[in-house]
């Protein structure tokens, strides 16, 4: 007799990911879909996908998806959620999308306590456009547009979104997790689940920042990329829960 040990979540389609080998996007898609299955919310979920490598995430999701303009996902999600308060609306955004061009939309949906879930993929680079400096690129990081390494004198410092949003009264849950190891991935799933549960329970804005890899544009093998995430990113972007408000945000 056979026993099912692992099953693809139902809310994830059969389509093969177009993401590069060793890229975190695939891992996070799977975690999000597992959570959607476990909470049995597939039929009432609407994703807002970004402009970035996840711009065609709808190919992998078995639920409704709206493609937003670059950085505008939280505003689009706001419109959806205000129109459909009983639906589950989440955005899935990269760091260029969320922390650069869409900073205003991010901060204001957070401070309004908009009852949405934000999944934030921080890979310290603009993946889709071929590896330019992101607002989250680390000091000294070599990218196409910081070929001599990010010079903090002329190119400024990385943005720590979780810490920044934690100063606001609006958000209900803010956490930073990582995809570099099995224990960390388990933690990531717990945080993602909480961020969705919060919305279902009407608790308001939840964001999970997921430290991620982009081996292709970092010029590394998948293994080296995980190593960099662990050794360079986690020290700059400490993991943990930055805010967790339990009371209902009315």
């Amino acid at each position, binding site marked *: 007799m056979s026993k099912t040990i692992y099953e693809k979540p139902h809310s994830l389609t059969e389509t093969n990911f177009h993401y590069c080998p060793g890229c975190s996007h695939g891992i996070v898609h799977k975690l999000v879909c597992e959570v959607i299955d476990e909470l049995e919310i597939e039929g009432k979920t609407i994703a807002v996908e970004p402009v970035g490598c996840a711009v065609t995430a709808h190919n992998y999701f078995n639920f409704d998806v709206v493609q937003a303009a670059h950085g505008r996902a939280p505003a689009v999600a706001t419109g959806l959620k205000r129109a459909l308060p009983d639906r589950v609306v989440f955005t899935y955004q990269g760091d260029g999308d969320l922390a650069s061009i869409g900073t205003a*939309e991010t901060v204001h949906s957070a401070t309004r306590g908009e009852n949405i879930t934000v999944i934030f993929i921080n890979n310290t680079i603009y993946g889709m456009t071929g590896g330019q400096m992101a607002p989250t690129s680390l000091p000294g990081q070599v990218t196409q547009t910081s070929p001599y390494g990010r010079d903090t004198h002329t190119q400024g410092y990385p943005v720590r979104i979780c810490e920044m949003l934690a100063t606001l009264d609006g958000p209900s849950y803010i956490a930073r997790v990582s995809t570099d190891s099995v224990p960390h991935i388990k933690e990531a799933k717990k945080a993602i689940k909480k961020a969705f549960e919060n919305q279902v329970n009407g608790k308001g804005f939840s964001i999970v920042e997921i430290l991620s890899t982009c081996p292709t544009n970092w010029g590394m093998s998948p293994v080296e990329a995980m190593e960099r995430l662990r050794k360079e990113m986690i020290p700059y972007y400490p993991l943990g829960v930055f805010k967790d408000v339990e009371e209902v945000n009315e």
Partner: protein
Amino acid sequence: MSEKVLMKGNEAIGEAAIRSGCRHFFGYPITPQTELSAYMAKKMPKIGGVFLQAESEVAAINMVYGAASAGVRAMTSSSSPGISLKSEGLSYIAAADLPCVVVNMVRGGPGLGGIQPAQSDYFQATRGGGHGDYHLIVLAPNSVQELAYLTAEAFNLSEEYRIPAMILGDGTIGQMMEPVDFDLIPEPVYAQKPWATNGTEGKREKNVTETLFLEPSELEERVFEREKKYDVVRENLQRYKSHDTDDADIIIVSYGLTSRVVETAVKILRSEGIKAGAIRPITLWPFPEKVFKEVHPKAFLSVEMSMGQMVEDVKLACDCSVPVHFFGRTGGVIPTPDEVVNKVKEILKEVE
């Protein structure tokens, strides 16, 4: 029995929108459309609707995009500088074939410009404003009653054709008070929205609201399809009003507030025995070009509160078969009937 109420133009838009089933309004403060946001802020919470003051016009139009994709009647309003910011979102909304209504109470430009009425956003409104091959349905009212009427129409037309609609007014139309009868505005006609991204409930295939098509032939096919829809609109939706055109030596073309100035000018000219007539486009896109083939003046004169934008459409509409002249004031200055009368006399002197 129907009843007239005295209302500001901007407020009449709000009331007409609510009566048309709009329950989602996303705004950002700017003069001279403020009364509309204020009206919605007051009314929406009382009727279970949403009024949200966004962080910017960029956010507001993207909230409209989200709400429209969910299948509800959504609206935003602004004035010129704010419409520039909304242009990105309008391009996406048009590309996603979503219905919505956007109000532009035009003020003088470019840049921050002024806060007095202008018509210098005609190009922006009728040519798209944002990037790509697309159009908005553009409606230009010239009274408070018509503002209310066309707001209701805008929701219906936008839903029928899945094309975003714009009410193109100006500071004066928005802020002047006139009697309005809401019993005279069209009833809402709701279209089916099987495309709405409102959750599958496990009962249908997923819906995707998207605007990215990396395969050139696929994108071209979609643009072609939309263009066919635009052709239907061009054929069916041209609206205008005209008067004194039958025997006219000169026909003055103007829209919105300016058409009221022109009406007076035509009266003066006629009283002096000068054969002047007028055409007032109500749809600016589609431009009512058919009527230009049915009239036979010796010249046209486009009068606008701009440096000459609609005049290009007049030239196209009459195929330059007769001279097309232009008179305009801009920056918030409203042309006077006398100025128009003098311009007409000048033109007719040249013609004779």
